[in-house]
């Protein structure tokens, strides 16, 4: 079973992602801040990390850059999850080593899930 770690401080957002991806056969872990996200990433070795950029303890992009430099996460897809305007989200995600971004709020459950799955297959 593929494992997804979502790092997101808003519980409703995290729960929505959990429900969508669990229903498609994934295991979903949740961390509500960057420090916990880093600990869970190191201990649970997720197959994909979905990262909110506005976290209460550290900036999400800061965590992305840190994770990307860890050898253990060199090949793990890191996806920014943000309400930023598309152009800024895309540019900053790339600059910090993310594999892409997914915009908030989730418009289509099907499209959201397929996008996550596409990052895992890439």
């Amino acid at each position, binding site marked *: 079973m593929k494992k997804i770690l979502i790092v997101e401080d808003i519980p409703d957002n995290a729960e929505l992602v959990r429900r969508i991806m669990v229903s498609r056969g994934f295991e979903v872990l949740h961390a509500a801040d960057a420090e916990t996200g880093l600990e869970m990433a190191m201990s649970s070795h997720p197959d994909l990390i979905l990262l909110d950029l*506005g976290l209460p303890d550290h900036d999400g992009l800061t965590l992305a850059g840190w994770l990307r430099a860890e050898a253990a996460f060199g090949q793990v897809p890191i996806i920014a999850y943000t309400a930023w305007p598309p152009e800024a989200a895309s540019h900053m995600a790339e600059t910090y080593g993310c594999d892409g971004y997914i915009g908030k709020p989730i418009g289509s459950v099907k499209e959201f899930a397929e996008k996550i799955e596409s990052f895992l297959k890439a």
Partner: protein
Amino acid sequence: MSDTITTGIKLIPASRFSIGQLTAIYNQTRVDYMVPMPMNEARLVEYINTYDVDLGHSLVAMQDEEMLGVAMLGLREGRAWLTRLGVIPNTRRQGVGLALCEGFLEQAHNLGINFQMLEVIKNNVPAQTLFLKLGFYEVGELLVLRRSPIIPPAEPVVADAQRLDRNEALDLVGQDRGTQPWTNQSESLSNASEVSGLRLTLVDGSTGWLVYQRQKFLLTRFAFKTQTGNPVDMAHAFLSHLHHQYPRLDTHLENIQVHDPHLPAFYEAGYLESFRRIEMWRGSPPPSLTGGEH
């Protein structure tokens, strides 16, 4: 103008609320921002300590038992700073922000402070209009910059590089930065932990220094000066040494003056502009902040 609710608003000193309550109201005021920048309690405490926020003179707007907004007051010799001003989304445009700002000015007046400072995000027209109406005026434009650690650092420029401990670094920063943006004033660095610095002499004899704070994942709070020589060359040199020393750390810089002569070297080193702020003052800086000049 939509309906006003100002008649029922009470302004309560923020010191009567717990840090948890203040964190919650602050986060609620930002929840619909494009970049919400939420804080946890630890970050808010750090913010209060670093920026000399006086909770006894900071205000929470209440109606009945509901918190509607917050305005914090930073207090240093001869100056006050309006910060963390915010109103929860469903009560905006009803006079709460104006009441908080007027309350802030009254608190400053009661403290004998006639010089107030703030920064507002560029293009936040409603907020800027409010501040202009209250007597603030624009004094400059500021950059918020960041640099990703994914960018490989340049090779360090050949130079005589001397590492500075906290005391040496703070000595260089000095105490004459009272009219700089609040976040970059001497007190902000003095209050911060893990501050150190770097003094460089280049092969052509140019001299300069950089003081910074190193956090767990982040370099931030830069103060820098070119004492002799070309500012771009000096910045290129100190950034090359700094990022070579800390290749894994993200870098965030707040409120760099848009005309700072060192800036080309920052862009060359991979710094990106996150957004801009407008710096606004109300009143004139007292002589103690300007070396006697007006």
